[in-house]
């Protein structure tokens, strides 16, 4: 058998009948061996969910937990031949929590069957799956309207669902120009109608059966039409005298320049390449010429898309794994800043400022998600503002890399436009992503028609704006810790501002004294200034005694919950008085300072501070660490 294998997935909401559909299709096309049919019948009677008949879904759910719970957790691959074509089907889970496994399946496929229960219509999960398929470049979609037996093959019911499907397809086309072929079909996965043969129950349906659609759909041929892209995967090296040569290698091959053999191995992910072709290596831009092409042990004149070959070059070059070879006239862009789409997969949310590792076919780099542009809400496909991402969220963001890499927009090349981000702390795959376009510096400054709000401002900072409000007696250590904290944050590239007596009392608040009323007004103004600064995206650190609970709570109320962090520097009065760095306690005791906190004016300790710092037994660095930890978790 020759020709293209069709890799397709089944997806849709839980219980829409994916596993039943594939199991039944395999059965009807003679792809289930007799011993497995016997096992199936025994198991259907024991744990099946369809009463007396065969529960075809049991043919697919392979994990113990899946069979016990009757759900699909991870993608299962099945291989079959029907109507003269070879198929690989990825049966993917419908539950929201396993979306990343669905995406895993989708990334390997070129066509999708999206199931819709005719009685339920399009569900949020159907939309999410359809969107993921479209974003991942699947352009051939068949909506399978299932469980038609439950509505007595009512055409009106089918048409109602079809209308919803048409609206969904229009929405999808906003995200991917490639969603070209989208059709729908009424079936019963359980009874087998319209799977392989046209059903007498749906005389009103004139389209192809499911199998006919699968047998004739043509996957997109972007690999053939895109220009040559050859990412170097591995450098094959040999010394003339060494014994690491395979036994049947002709002497001629061993005599490379300088007595060494070097071949650059990889897959022609798109386009084609022939001996003698002149190419450039990116990102360096070095020009080179193909000498020979090896497919296994055979020398070939040219390599076509999908060919895993090795090439030797004329002359000596410093080419390494991750370099991308391409024609000089149709070379990929090279950039380090991108607008991308992300599908978040890690259990942990996106941490602003956490470093991820970018992996693509053209190499690895450190990556920062510097700005979340929006989150795409699957129920409406609307773009909403977002300041973090949780598992299964779909978003658009700006990505900065530690070095420039060659790439194409995902729309034009699904290999060189795709990447994953790996969480460097947990090694988990944080998300997968698709490059929309690069961001040149100018573009970075000119954002298109989006209103600049506090989220947008915070976005370019790459961190959550916060107020870290220190409170405690005079001499308790507020300023010392606040300064240390600020230099720590500053060294990490965080944009901070420290407000203390020095820069407030002498300017903005120079009209205020130390009466109780003035002290309240002092704190109110500091609160307002801090608010403006967090709106500007900064991390604000304040170091004032701020003795009154009510005023601190007033300030707290000005901020979103997670943005106000009260740090109580809990140094006992006696210790402060003993330290007395500025001699103020002495003066106060001598009656020279009226309203001095702790002596002749009260200090109200916080009831529920976010952080309590102990300066007596804990060294300064550790207190700073304690606050840093809180910031990272919050």
């Amino acid at each position, binding site marked *: 058998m020759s020709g293209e294998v069709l890799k397709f997935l089944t997806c849709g909401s839980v219980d829409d009948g994916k596993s039943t559909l594939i199991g039944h299709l395999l059965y009807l096309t003679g792809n289930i061996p007799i011993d497995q049919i016997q096992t199936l019948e025994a198991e259907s009677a024991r744990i099946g969910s369809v009463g007396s008949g065969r529960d075809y879904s049991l043919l697919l759910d392979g994990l113990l937990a899946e069979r016990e719970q009757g759900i699909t957790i991870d993608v299962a691959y099945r291989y079959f031949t029907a109507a003269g074509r070879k198929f690989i089907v990825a049966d993917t889970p419908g539950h929201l929590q396993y979306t990343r496994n669905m995406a895993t399946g989708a990334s390997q496929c070129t066509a999708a069957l999206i199931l819709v229960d005719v009685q339920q219509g399009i569900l949020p999960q159907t939309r999410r799956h359809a969107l993921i398929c479209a974003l991942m470049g699947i352009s051939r979609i068949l909506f399978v309207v299932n469980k038609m037996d439950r509505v007595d093959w009512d055409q009106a019911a089918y048409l109602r669902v079809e209308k919803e499907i048409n609206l969904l397809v229009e929405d999808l086309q906003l995200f991917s120009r490639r969603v070209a072929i989208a059709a729908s079909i009424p079936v019963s996965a359980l009874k087998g109608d319209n799977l392989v043969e046209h059903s007498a129950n749906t005389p009103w349906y004139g389209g192809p059966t499911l199998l006919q659609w699968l047998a004739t759909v043509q996957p997109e041929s972007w690999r053939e039409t895109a220009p040559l892209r050859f990412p170097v995967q591995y450098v094959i090296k040999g010394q003339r005298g060494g014994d690491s*040569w395979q036994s049947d290698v002709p002497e001629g091959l061993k005599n490379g320049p300088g007595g060494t053999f070097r071949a650059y191995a990889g897959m022609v992910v798109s386009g084609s390449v022939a001996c003698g072709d002149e190419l450039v290596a990116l990102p360096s831009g070095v020009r080179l010429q193909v000498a020979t092409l090896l497919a296994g042990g055979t020398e070939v004149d040219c390599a076509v898309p999908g060919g895993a070959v090795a090439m030797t070059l004329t002359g000596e070059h410093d080419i390494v794994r991750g370099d991308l070879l391409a024609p000089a006239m149709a070379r990929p862009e090279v950039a380090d800043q991108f607008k991308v789409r992300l599908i978040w997969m890690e259990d942990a949310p996106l941490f602003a400022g956490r470093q991820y590792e970018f992996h693509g076919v053209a190499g690895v780099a450190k990556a920062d998600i510097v700005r979340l542009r929006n989150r795409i809400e699957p129920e409406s496909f609307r773009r909403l503002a977002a300041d973090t991402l949780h598992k299964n969220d779909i978003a658009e963001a700006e990505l900065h890399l530690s070095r420039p890499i060659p790439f194409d927009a995902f729309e034009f090349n699904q290999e060189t436009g795709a990447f994953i981000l790996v969480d460097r702390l947990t090694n988990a795959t944080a998300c997968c992503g698709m490059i929309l376009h690069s961001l040149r510096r100018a573009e970075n400054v000119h954002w298109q028609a989006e209103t600049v709000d506090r989220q947008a401002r915070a976005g370019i900072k790459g961190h959550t704006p916060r107020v870290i409000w220190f409170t405690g007696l005079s001499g308790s250590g507020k300023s010392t810790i606040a300064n240390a904290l600020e230099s720590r944050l500053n060294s990490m590239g965080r944009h901070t501002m420290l407000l203390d007596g020095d820069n407030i009392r002498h300017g903005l608040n120079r009209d205020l004294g130390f009466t109780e009323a003035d002290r309240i007004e002092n704190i109110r103004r500091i609160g307002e200034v801090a608010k403006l600064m967090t709106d500007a995206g900064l991390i604000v650190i304040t170091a004032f005694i701020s003795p009154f609970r009510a005023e601190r709570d007033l300030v707290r109320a000005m901020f979103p919950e997670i943005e106000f962090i009260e740090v109580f520097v809990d140094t006992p009065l006696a210790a402060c008085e003993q330290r007395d760095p500025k001699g103020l306690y002495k003066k106060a005791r001598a009656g020279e300072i009226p309203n001095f906190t702790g002596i002749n004016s009260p200090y109200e300790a916080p009831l529920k501070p976010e952080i309590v710092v102990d300066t007596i037994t804990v060294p300064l660095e550790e207190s700073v660490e304690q606050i840093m930890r809180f910031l990272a978790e919050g």
Partner: protein
Amino acid sequence: MDVLDRLENESIRIIREAVAQAERPAMLYSIGKDSSVMLHLALKAFYPMKPPLPLVHVDTTWKFREMIAFRDETVAQLGLELVTYTNMEGVAQGVSPFTHGSKVYTDIMKTGALRMALDMFRFDMVFGGARRDEEKSRAKERVFSFRDVGHRWEPRGQRPEIWAIPNLRKGRDESFRVFPLSNWTELDVWRYIERESIPVVPLYFAAPRPVVLRDGQLLLLDDERLKLMPGEQAETRMIRFRTLGCYPLTAGVESRAATVAEVIAELEAADTSERCGRLIDFDQAGSMEMKKREGYF
């Protein structure tokens, strides 16, 4: 490009990717047809150099004799490095499929031995010839399958595997199993063996062989350790094997297919699945999954 070309290219890409990112790669060489194909692909992937990895064979001491002979011949001919490992403690305790039952025997002599071998050599990227069409839990496994420090597979929390960009980052003593043949079917394997003239153990081809019928399965009388039970009789039948493992646990099937072409014709007409001759898969429900979770390949 036909179906076999596509499979071949995809597998070569997987093999190169894993080796490029490995510190100590190794190939689990079980001497079966899938291993033979995998080895052939590795030779192509790194041509003209030898694949930069050793072959590892976990020898339970109960393999068919012809398998061992074939292994030694192959390794010598290709000039490859072979690491064999046997759980000597298990041997000393006399653990065998007859005395301990297939489950305990497999735990100790296969799963346990494999874990020990991998720990001893600290291999971090280990190729296996498993295919997804063999068994349901394998159908669920990733091509690049993460294993924790105890070599365990966690089926409920597999890493996403997106496009052809695997995430192979790992901590100390964690490792990966890599299955380049994931997307091959049994027929693909045989058609490829035919096309490429890949040598395989002769046990795959029908010949008159001494067997005993036990519990409805035909077991080869490979050496004197298989003792006939009362009422049993040695007989000669035309049989071949669809998979090869430990001879007391691997049943033959009656067949006339004596060449690769005949094997293919037989499979095209077949209506039972490949692993139904594997006795260890049936000792409990979901047994393959359980074994993999304990570190079996």
